[in-house]
């Protein structure tokens, strides 16, 4: 695993905007960054990332049924009691899931370590599945990279296949928060792949969803029988339409049982079930009796996204914190496994890399890399492409 500086493609910004990638730059700061790429060997990809990703997924899926039956675990995960039966049913009916992403620490050697799961609303999908794929094709065409360069990125193929295979109610709706261009970009990309798989797709802004006699309806008051929601389950179960969810006959993607896995509480539960697994870091629920956060530990809210409200203390005792709006719940503690540090020659600065590893259905589907100047990866962290080349 190497970080290699490379010239940017001449017109990539114009191209990005042409294909609807409107958030390639955020507040004047780059989000998509092709001033460098990461290079992996095929063995690193297959042995250290692809296989462990599928193993971690299987380990996680094996726990879902047990959690749905355990009052103790449901309580630890802070799942509202009103939703316990709904989640149990969602799992036992075998409601299909589409995708998820593991965030891993990996530096090219040794086992990748699981930082957390994004199993409910993972984004950076378009950047991974489409834009970095096109980047590689372009750089091969431009003669910058050799013909035999490859990429661990079957996301587009696998999501399209999944949409064709899952039995979805038609028309099938997609929703995201109005005015959030990043989320809308992700949803647009999913709709695009769904159309190619033959799904009759509709978009509705989250705020426009209606409740008509305990059935979700669109703006024409037509029933929404199937819905992809890029909005966290833990918010939905707290909002005004929470009661409609359990009464309505709407098939949700991701399904309700994903609530158990998009929760940082799954990290201590995995560690309890699989102690000393090479891809897991020690993790515990924080309680009133927990000692103050010590050196070499990380503290994360049960529900948080994009690194928000994460505190960590490095082994040398330096405290690093990310601000955020999630400071209203319970926390887990996880042993610190620092992200690998690389030299960003373009910016003449140190940079830390985190690796996202995708799952579609039950198979590993590629990786994406996020870089930040700090040890905590955030929504502003840059996205860099990668290649496989031996």
């Amino acid at each position, binding site marked *: 695993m190497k970080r290699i500086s490379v010239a940017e493609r001449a017109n990539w910004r114009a191209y990005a905007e042409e294909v609807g990638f409107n958030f390639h730059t955020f507040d004047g700061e780059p989000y998509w960054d092709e001033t460098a790429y990461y290079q992996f060997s095929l063995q690193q990809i297959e042995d250290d990332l692809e296989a462990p990703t599928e193993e971690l997924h299987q380990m996680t899926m094996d726990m879902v049924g047990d959690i749905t039956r355990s009052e103790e675990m449901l309580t630890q995960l802070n799942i509202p009691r009103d939703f316990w039966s709904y989640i149990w049913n969602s799992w036992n009916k075998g409601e299909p899931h589409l995708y998820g992403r593991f965030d891993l620490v990996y530096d090219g050697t040794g086992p990748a370590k699981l930082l957390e799961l994004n199993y409910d609303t993972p984004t950076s999908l378009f950047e991974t599945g489409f834009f970095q794929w096109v980047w590689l094709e372009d750089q091969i065409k431009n003669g910058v990279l050799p013909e035999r360069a490859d990429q661990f990125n079957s996301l587009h193929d696998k999501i399209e296949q999944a949409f064709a295979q899952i039995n979805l109610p038609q028309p099938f709706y997609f929703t995201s928060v109005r005015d*959030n261009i990043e989320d809308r970009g992700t949803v647009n990309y999913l*709709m695009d792949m769904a159309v190619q798989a033959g799904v009759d797709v509709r978009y509705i802004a989250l705020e426009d969803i209606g409740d008509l006699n305990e059935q979700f309806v669109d703006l024409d008051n037509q029933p929404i029988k199937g819905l992809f929601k890029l909005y966290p389950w833990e918010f939905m179960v707290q909002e005004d339409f929470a009661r409609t969810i359990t009464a309505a006959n709407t098939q949700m993607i991701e399904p309700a049982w994903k609530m158990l896995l998009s929760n940082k509480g799954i990290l201590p539960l995995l560690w309890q079930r699989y102690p000393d697994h090479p891809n897991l870091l020690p993790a515990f629920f924080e309680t009133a009796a927990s000692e103050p956060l010590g050196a070499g530990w990380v503290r994360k809210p049960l529900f948080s*996204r994009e690194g928000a409200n994460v505190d960590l203390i490095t082994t040398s005792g330096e405290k690093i914190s990310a601000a955020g709006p999630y400071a209203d719940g319970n926390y887990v503690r996880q042993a610190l496994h620092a992200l690998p540090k690389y030299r960003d020659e373009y910016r003449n600065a140190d940079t830390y890399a985190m690796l996202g590893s995708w799952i579609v259905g039950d198979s590993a589907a590629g990786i994406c890399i996020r870089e930040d100047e700090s040890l905590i990866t955030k929504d502003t962290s840059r996205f860099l492409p990668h290649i496989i080349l031996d």
Partner: protein
Amino acid sequence: MKRSKKAALVLMVPVATLLLAGCGEEREQAMVFTDPSECSAAALNSAAQCEADYVAAQTLHPQVAPKYLNKEECETDFGAGQCETAPQQTTSGGSVFMPMMMGYLAGQMMNRGGSNFQQPAAAGAGAGSNVPTQPLYKSRDDRGTFRTATNKPVAGGIGPITLKPSQVKPQVGQVVRRGGFGQQAATRNSFGG
């Protein structure tokens, strides 16, 4: 190869969007009558279906009919003596007025030969039809034309018609609640991860 064989977009590029927008909806057969006896006489639907559709339209009428806070305004639009009191009240207890139902629209169930009698649908669009059953109205200045509650003209008289079902979806606005999701969008600005 560890990467997708293709990564194509069809919706996110402008050209393809135009292609999709052209997808047409089929026109369907429907019928307009002022009461169920006319409907039975026309033998396009069974008598039982005619009655069920009429009742469904009557039930929908107070929900979808346009509402007015005084009778004069209602009569300005629908004609003298053509308005009635709605079951709803204003929050301060005042009366609400609406036009009278002048007819109804329903999907056509039977084949032209009239042999395929079906059981009556309880309400809404009957089996085999996507046309939503609903009440129809007539405006003051155009007494010949049947219109939906949203003022869409559908027929110049009773009998069979064809239309696109999506153009006559009843708007049951009063009982739909919206905005029940997204409250936390105001306090948290990122929802993906």
